[in-house]
């Protein structure tokens, strides 16, 4: 079921490292620069760095929100791209896509932790799933983020702990998200991208 991967290019951050990782894995992809190119792809990646509210605004300006919400094809949000799939972010109190009825929160100062959460943290995949197929149940991935998606047994595909248990990966129907950066997470991260290209 492998098919062309479209990267939703809505101007939210640098994607050089992501495309480099796809190249290394031999995964064919192209940029989706405008909404009329959307339908010709078989799967989608929503990248994203920076401010979730600003990213949402750019996504709206791209005109691709309705296409993303209506597709039945696999979608993978990475980092802020994953947060966009939630209904709300405490970052700028932003309303987001609302694919999954969960919220994106700021790591509380009360946790006395260093923020941004930067580095390699252990990710536990909770159930057998296509995205983490072939990986150990506990694997380190590379994170850089200040906001996290709350743990929810219905949607959390893999969890990590940083003072609080949060969603390192989520799934809702055909929508997937990873909070870590697969393109920077060594061979494990490349495996995630490869797995997604085969869903």
């Amino acid at each position, binding site marked *: 079921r492998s098919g062309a991967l479209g990267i939703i290019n809505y101007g939210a951050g*640098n994607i*050089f*490292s992501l495309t*480099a*990782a796809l*190249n*290394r894995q031999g995964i064919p992809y192209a940029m989706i620069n405008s909404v009329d190119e959307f339908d010709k792809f078989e799967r989608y990646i929503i990248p994203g*760095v*920076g401010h979730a509210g600003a990213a949402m605004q750019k996504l709206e300006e791209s005109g691709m929100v309705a296409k993303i919400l209506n597709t039945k094809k696999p979608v993978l949000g990475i980092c802020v791209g994953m947060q966009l799939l939630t209904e709300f972010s405490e970052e700028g109190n932003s309303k987001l896509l609302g694919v999954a009825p969960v919220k994106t929160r700021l790591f509380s100062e009360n946790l*006395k*932790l*260093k*923020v*941004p*959460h*930067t*580095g*390699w*943290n*252990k990710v536990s995949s909770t159930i057998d799933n296509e995205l983490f197929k072939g990986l150990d149940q506990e694997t*380190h991935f*590379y994170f*850089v*983020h*200040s906001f996290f998606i709350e743990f929810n047994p219905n949607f959390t595909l893999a969890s990590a702990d*940083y003072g609080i248990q949060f969603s390192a990966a989520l799934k809702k129907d055909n929508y997937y998200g990873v909070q870590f*950066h697969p*393109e*920077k*997470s*060594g*061979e494990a*991260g*490349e495996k995630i991208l490869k797995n997604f290209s085969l869903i």
Partner: protein
Amino acid sequence: MAKRIIPCLDVKDGRTVKGVNFVDLRDAGDPVELAWQYSQQGADELVFLDITATHERRKTMVELVKAVARQINIPFTIGGGINEISDADILLNAGADKISINSAAVRNPDFIDELAAAFGKQFVVVAVDTKLVEGTNLVHLNGGRIATEFETEKWIKEAEERGAGEILLTSMDHDGTKAGFDNSLLKKINDTISIPLIASGGAGNVQHFIDVFEKTNVDAALAASVFHYGEILIPSLKEELRKHNIEVRL
């Protein structure tokens, strides 16, 4: 969180400066091949310090960053002579995960705020070279040759407040001694900040890495020559850390 092990590569005119003792290395001067070897050995992150002095500097830095981003699957930082927002922008778009600034931040502290506002604090590493002068830790520039009036602890707090996402602290008193990291200073600094701290300067053997992680709560330890000359191999270093119940990524 896993503690990070970070080899640092000095690069000049697109070539690595220090000798390297890996077997099967086709070209020890090629930073990308070296970087690849380190990533295969289990390095968690890499730092490239560009010491090119020519006017071609920016071009060679960008080419290096692109080549590394194409081939290496772990995060990396580039530092050396980044003085303007446009320098940082071009390196970000070439695939750098972070930039490291040192003297540019001391000379113009607003630069930290500007970088954090433009790219987010996670992109901004402030490197600090410190040296003890008559009982006071002072920030130094040019690899410890030039003393400033900045007190190290105060400067690091200021850098954090201005938007540094991470501090790379090199003790010039320990650097090159192979006598171990400056654990008392690192612990003191680490306890006062709430952003990640990378320890640098003084690594000579495996025990020094165990010590720095056990005695301080730093997030990462950086070294150059002990890795380049093969005195410490990353897989066995990580194995030893793991035996001491220090979380590492294997």
